[in-house]
């Protein structure tokens, strides 16, 4: 009996803790937004973080995109040729990439590649008093350290998602047209007829922008509030990847429902 009560108590406590943490994250987000102008005015701060978050993630994104596109082409062709419509492969691949896989897979890879690095870096700065030292030098660490990293994530993710999708289309072109032998012209023309700029490409961009906000916020938040120990920083890094991935997938569902509402005529 006691153990049941303890269990319920424990559950209640963890729910309360989670809510308190969410509230803390919300306040942290506001604090970042208040000083988001700093990295825009001091562009070199942003450029440095764009280098570490964006440029360093470029290779993994482009390579992954190409392979995802190639696999999509093979799988898509296998199904489509059963219905005799293999030439619509371009639409299938492009829509999958632009609407879903581009933003989502890029965000997941980005969380693992750049988000975890940002958390570890900020966590170590916190553990070695670098953030406290900056604060004592009358330099706001949220403005100087946190907001450029956050903004870099928001800027990088949409760009990376575009590259992922473009690489994926290229990979599908290689497999579909060069390897399988789908007609070049109908591959592209079907794709252009089926992909809408605003509804598909812009919506995909909006998604990756939202993911950029989510992954960036989680990464800097976990780092900033990581316990200042080796164990604390390493578990914060893990939490960044896990929480960002879950957040991205859940946000993707919400955004997809919202974007494609009422489109079923």
């Amino acid at each position, binding site marked *: 009996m006691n153990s049941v009560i303890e269990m319920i108590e424990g559950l209640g406590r963890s729910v309360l803790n989670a809510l308190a943490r969410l509230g803390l994250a919300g306040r942290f987000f506001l604090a970042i937004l208040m000083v988001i102008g700093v990295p825009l005015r001091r562009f070199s701060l942003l450029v440095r973080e764009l280098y570490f978050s964006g440029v360093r993630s470029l290779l993994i994104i482009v390579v992954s995109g190409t392979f995802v596109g190639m696999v999509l082409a093979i799988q898509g062709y296998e199904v489509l040729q059963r219905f005799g419509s293999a030439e619509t492969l371009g639409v299938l691949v492009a829509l999958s990439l632009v609407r879903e896989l581009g933003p989502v897979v890029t965000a997941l890879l980005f969380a693992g590649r750049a988000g975890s690095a940002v958390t570890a870096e900020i966590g*170590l*700065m916190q553990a*070695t*008093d*670098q953030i*406290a*030292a*900056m*604060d*004592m*030098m*009358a*330099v*706001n660490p949220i403005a*100087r350290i946190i907001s450029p990293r956050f903004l870099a994530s928001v800027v990088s993710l949409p760009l990376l998602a575009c590259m992922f999708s473009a690489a994926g289309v290229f990979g599908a072109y290689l497999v579909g047209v060069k390897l399988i032998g789908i007609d070049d012209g109908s591959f592209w023309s079907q794709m252009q007829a089926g992909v809408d700029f605003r509804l598909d490409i812009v919506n995909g961009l909006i998604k990756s922008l939202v993911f950029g906000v989510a992954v960036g916020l989680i990464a800097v938040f976990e780092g900033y509030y990581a316990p200042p120990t080796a164990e604390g920083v390493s578990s914060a890094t893990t939490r960044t990847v896990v929480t960002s991935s879950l957040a991205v997938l859940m946000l993707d569902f919400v955004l997809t429902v919202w974007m494609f509402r009422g489109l079923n005529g």
Partner: protein
Amino acid sequence: MPLPAACMDHEMSVVKSAPTHPDPLIEIKDVHFAYDERPILRGLSLSVRKGEVLAVMGGSGSGKTTLLGLIGGRILPNKGKILVDGQNVPKLDRAALYALRTRFGMLFQFGALFTDLSVFDNVAFPYREQTNLPESVIRDLVLLKLQAVGLRGAAGLMPSQLSGGMARRVALARAVALDPMLMLYDEPFTGLDPISTGIVARLIRRLNDAFGLTSLVVTHDLDASLKIADRVIVLAEGQVYRDLTPDDVRTTTDAFVRQFADGLPDGPVPFHYPAPPLLDQLLGKTVAGPNGGGTP
């Protein structure tokens, strides 16, 4: 309060409560602070006179580091006033606090150098952030500060390439970059070899006298601080326990200070964390304490 006025005087006798000074830079009045319900400071009052090097000592958890956080405005007290140069720190808004902090220099426990910046850029950081000086002037100032701590030759190194003592000295150069009025030192000797400890201790004294600073050194390294301090304050139970001159510390018969000065394992500060009698616990007569881990 009984108030012996002077304190630069090394012949001073033992005083048991916080003295006030004719010209204090920091005045702390009846400050209470609890961390998660655990009281750290209970009515702490002390003052720091302009120009002196004050060593604050005490065991782990006695609130030494908390004291620095309070003076720097990084943590807020539950109660009490903290006057620095006439301004009550806990009541300042962010802009005023930051304005005040530009006149502080703080040396953190392990230096807290920015690991992504070179030694030169670390020392240049305060100038680049807080002033509009041209880069050529900054360069000269940085080289002068590095020269003062003997590390001009290390300007191009990264913090990861420095030894503990060198990192501490670079951090010191960075802390005094903007010619502060007040220097705060958080355990400046921790983890240093005797030579480095001596170098850092002498630098603290020399910088204090050369630039007319006031220095507050939080430490548990008695030897090093006795060499450089004008006055030693011992914290215990969240209050000022003793206010002594270095000579007093060497000669006092106070059991607590003696235990601290001589490094005795047991004394007024007990060796054992509070626990039920060992025999009772072994025989299972008492329930284990929170950290006891015994079986009921």
